[in-house]
């Protein structure tokens, strides 16, 4: 289904993100050990692995939240220096979190509007007056956000504080917030965790549509193997911080080491 989706229209470009020999440790715990893989422009790249394999740590390295001790990350051809997450955001990397990190006191609309912040140019003095350019800017971005709200089918909850929304919708709003930034690289940390089949299907549809319509490169972590095998172009498998396998879903599915890691192997 995956590779047939959108078929001809999808174009996979050159490498947008290259992770080389990245190592990360917290004290004595080696979270990542010389992990190497690349992400090509326009593809859906999945990272899978058992709990504690270092998947989330990998995403945290990519968007500047953790600073790996070894190795290099090359993004859009530039070798990455140590950077803060907001700098990564400015370069076009957006993400969602495993355990929803929405701004609970704000409405759905405001939450998604925060995703537009880097596109807004007027400083606080203009906003204090809320006239002319500042007002126009606000309206332009509102119009863009409304498109995202339509896309994600969350019109009805536009003015509701997100803290009160059910889990599935919160996940959707969080995706909307990341999309509002018009990212080049979208990192999704378990976007379908804790959802029922129907919600999962919706989410898959959104992920595929985002990739298809906007050409956004997507890196996602997911535990649902059905989903991963269906929607991703290539899969990275991590286990205990080490790269176990890297390839198309079919390659990975048949990989002996992967099967061992997931099902357990007899050690002799």
């Amino acid at each position, binding site marked *: 289904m995956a590779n047939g989706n959108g078929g001809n229209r999808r174009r996979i470009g050159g490498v947008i993100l290259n992770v080389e020999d990245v190592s990360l440790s917290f004290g004595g715990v080696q979270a990542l050990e010389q992990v190497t893989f690349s992400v090509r422009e326009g593809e859906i790249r999945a990272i899978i692995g058992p709990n504690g394999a270092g998947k989330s740590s990998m995403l945290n390295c990519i*968007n500047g*939240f953790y600073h790996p001790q070894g190795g290099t990350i090359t993004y859009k051809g530039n070798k990455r220096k140590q950077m*803060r*997450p*907001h700098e*990564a*955001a*400015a370069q076009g990397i*957006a*993400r969602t*979190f495993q355990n929803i*990190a*929405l*701004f*609970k*006191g*704000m409405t759905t609309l*405001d939450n998604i*509007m*925060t*995703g537009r*912040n*880097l596109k*807004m140019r*007027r400083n*606080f003095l203009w*906003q*204090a*007056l*809320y006239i002319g350019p*500042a*007002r126009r800017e*606000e*309206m332009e971005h*509102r*119009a863009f956000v*409304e498109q995202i709200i339509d896309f994600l089918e969350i019109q009805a909850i536009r003015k509701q504080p997100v803290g009160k929304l059910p889990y599935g919708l919160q996940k959707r709003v969080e995706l909307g*917030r*990341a999309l509002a*930034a018009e990212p080049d690289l979208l990192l999704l940390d378990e976007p379908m965790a804790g959802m029922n089949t129907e919600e999962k299907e919706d989410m898959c549809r959104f992920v595929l549509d985002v990739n298809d319509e906007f050409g956004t490169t997507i890196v996602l972590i997911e535990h649902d193997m059905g989903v991963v095998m269906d929607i991703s172009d290539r899969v990275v498998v991590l286990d205990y911080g080490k790269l176990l396998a890297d390839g198309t879903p079919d390659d990975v599915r048949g990989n002996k080491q992967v099967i061992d890691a997931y099902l357990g192997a007899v050690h002799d």
Partner: protein
Amino acid sequence: MLYRESGQFKTSYEADQAILPIPQDRWFLMAVLLIAYLVIPAVSSEYMLQAVLIPFLVFAMAAIGLNLLLGYAGQLSLGTGGFMAVGAYMTYKMTTAWPDMDIIVVFLLSGLCAAGVGIIFGIPSLRIKGFYLAVATLAAQFFLSWMFNKVEWFYNYNPSGTITAPPRTVFGHVVTGPEATAETRYMVALILVTVFALIAKNLVRGRVGRSWMAIRDMDIAAEIIGFKPYQTKLLAFAISSFYCGIAGAMTLFLWLGSVETEAFAINISFQVLFMVIIGGLGSILGSFLGAAFITLVPVLLTNAPQLAGLQMATDLQKHLEVMIFGGLIIFFLIVEPHGFARLWQITKEKLRRWPFPY
């Protein structure tokens, strides 16, 4: 049914993003402003203005300031009194140094001074949060208090250590000093509060407000979405202190006329904090409601026995006042921990369905 919005459709985002999207709310605000600008100055006594309404406006200004910082940006500060002192002393210094400068300009400049001081004392917020930050801002309170007491330059080497508002005029009206009438001072304070409340509202409904709330609700996610935490927090401290500084200048020039550092002591910081908590965190309206509650209820309690025809010893009356006031605060916080602003919202929701109970 009294308050219904069904059938009201917005056809532009502009109308939808308006401060008060519902006509009933707009009429209500109009009525309040009309009363505040026209009726009150005409009918109020000198005492009413001086002891009740002007302090209410001064504290509303300070409460808006603290609410921007605490309610919106989530940074706890106990330095409000200190920042108010900066506003008062700098206004005094500037207006005595340059008597020809328009007093409103001086107000704004001293607000900027307070903003600068606020930024300096906001720097710890980049590292520490919550109660620890409160303790750090407490340092601002004590340091500033001490400085304005100790450095004689701030009160022009005046042996009594008090600063007194000199007479200044705006458009030919004497607005400060002993000759200024309570009506004029009330009007100036009212205009300042109206303008700055509007500005505050504009700030919180735009990108700046969203950046503050994002930092408040989840700072990690805020940074990942692209807000710079340092800039956001320091801007919150600057603007909040600006409001507090203006409130301090108003205390000296429009309300008390002459003050010592005692007028900006720690208990003022706490009072403003209570106003914000009781009024409602993260609400401009709440700042007004909280300021009204904290300034008006004691006045009401002081005058209640006389109105009821009771004779009471002054000390007994004073003690009763404190007890009842404390009781009321606890009562309201139990009934609605999110403050009056939330209570008002619930009332509106109830009115929408009235008289049907569902």
